């Protein structure tokens, strides 16, 4: 790898990092606006035209709030918690193929930070690390509500990771690779994996809701029972980090879903349009982001429709429904693959 490569990669990393932050920032705005529209309200409309500066105002407010670290908390871990949450949320974007290659002069720019051959495993690792931020923060707060929220988060993530992993195995059987780049490339045109793995996708998206702690599985921060859940004791920007991590997680999991099930940067007729490869790449990036934004909208749509599950129902659904279904999905995929080969 030459110096240009390293510089280009660094720029790419910074750009992707900024994009995730901006998307997360505006997801908070979109969440409030979309929630308002679902409930026949207007939503934030004061800061700037249509309230477009609302995230900036929110961020400023978070920064200016008094920072409180409870006297009986474990101070070091209290700070580690939110830092870990936001860090693990951010590093997931490294393996996502944002597009094909751009040719600038003689230089070929690959729109992916790194193509490790176990991309999906990496994503899983990062996702399961994410729960540590919640766990540590909840435990360090020295507050029973925080602890209960943290325990809920941990057990929920562990339960749903199993079903999520099993649903991915069926996908890996059809694709035959763990690299996200190859998986994206295989879904050329409209050969999207969701067509071959509808049940797997359904299981995956349900688990994605649970892993990102989004409603209807937002029991770790269940206000009605646990005050604020794991971030009860947090204030100022540390609270901001927790809330922000949730939105980055949502962005990343939308990107993962778009990549592995909905064709990533592929769109129908991409090569029959007669465009140069650079244009196809740019359109592909736009297509990928359109899919991501659709999924983010979907996350919010579900949140403002479905009430929260009860905790035993959540465990029931995870262990008694999703895991058997995922195993059945593997078996069916295997049978179909053997019969049609």
């Amino acid at each position: 790898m030459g110096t240009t490569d390293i510089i280009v990669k660094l720029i790419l990393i910074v750009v992707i990092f900024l994009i995730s932050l901006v998307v997360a920032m505006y997801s908070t705005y979109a969440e409030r606006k979309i929630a308002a529209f679902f409930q026949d309200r207007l939503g934030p409309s004061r800061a700037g035209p249509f309230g477009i500066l609302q995230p900036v105002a929110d961020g400023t407010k978070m920064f200016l709030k008094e920072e409180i670290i409870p006297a009986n908390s474990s101070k070091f871990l209290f700070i580690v918690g939110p830092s870990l949450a936001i860090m693990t949320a951010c590093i997931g974007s490294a393996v996502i193929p944002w597009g094909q290659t751009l040719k600038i002069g003689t230089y070929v720019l690959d729109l992916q930070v790194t193509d490790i051959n176990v991309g999906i495993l990496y994503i899983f690792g990062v996702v399961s690390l994410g729960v540590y931020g919640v766990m540590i923060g909840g435990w360090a707060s020295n507050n029973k509500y925080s602890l209960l929220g943290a325990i809920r988060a941990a057990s929920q993530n562990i339960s749903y990771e199993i079903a999520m992993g099993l649903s991915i195995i069926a996908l890996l059987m059809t694709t035959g690779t763990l690299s996200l780049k190859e998986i994206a490339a295989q879904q050329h045109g409209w050969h999207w994996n969701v067509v071959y793995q509808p049940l797997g996708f359904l299981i995956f998206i349900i688990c994605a809701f649970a892993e990102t702690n989004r409603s209807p599985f937002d029991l770790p921060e269940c206000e009605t029972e646990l005050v604020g859940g794991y971030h009860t004791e947090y204030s100022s920007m540390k609270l901001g980090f927790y809330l922000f991590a949730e939105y980055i997680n949502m962005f990343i999991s939308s990107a993962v879903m778009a990549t592995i099930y909905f064709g990533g940067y592929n769109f129908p007729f991409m090569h029959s349009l007669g465009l140069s490869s650079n244009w196809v790449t740019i359109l592909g990036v736009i297509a990928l982001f359109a899919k991501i934004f659709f999924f983010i909208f979907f996350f919010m749509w579900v949140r403002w429709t479905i009430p929260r599950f009860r905790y035993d129902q959540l465990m029931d659904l995870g262990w008694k429904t999703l895991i058997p279904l995922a195993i059945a999905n593997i078996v069916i995929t295997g049978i179909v693959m053997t019969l049609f080969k």
Partner: protein
Amino acid sequence: MEALSNKRKVLEAKPLNIWERAYLPAIVKGMGITLKHFLFTKAVTISYPEQKREFSENFRGMHSLKRDEHGRERCTACGLCALSCPAEAITMISAERKPGEENLYREEKYAAVYEINMLRCIFCGLCEEACPKEAIYLDGDIVPSDYLRKDFIYGKDKLVEAPLNQ
């Protein structure tokens, strides 16, 4: 015993069938309903200070101290409004009208200071009912918000109607 009204309904808790237990059909239906609201229903809320809802005719808002047809203050500082006020929001200091002030005050005694604490007031309208001189009416707008408690104590500068010739 048999109920007389015959209105009683016996409800049985039916176990959910497989369709209902699958959750998904119900979820899809619910999402359809919310989407309809998202796309088609107009917002029922308004942007308040710029837009205002129409008040009913007997809406009780901010008080105003009235003047008579010659532009003189009607209030005679009898204190009946203060006595009738269930929230103890009204207080006043009376003064005697000097010769030459007949064009300012209708009665020989008038309120030199008249204060209503808008944080105490419950806008019941009893002061309006109690007033023998038809001097006080709650015909104003919503009392605006403010930052300090002391700014909610409205004196005559805010309460008395504008003079006639202006």
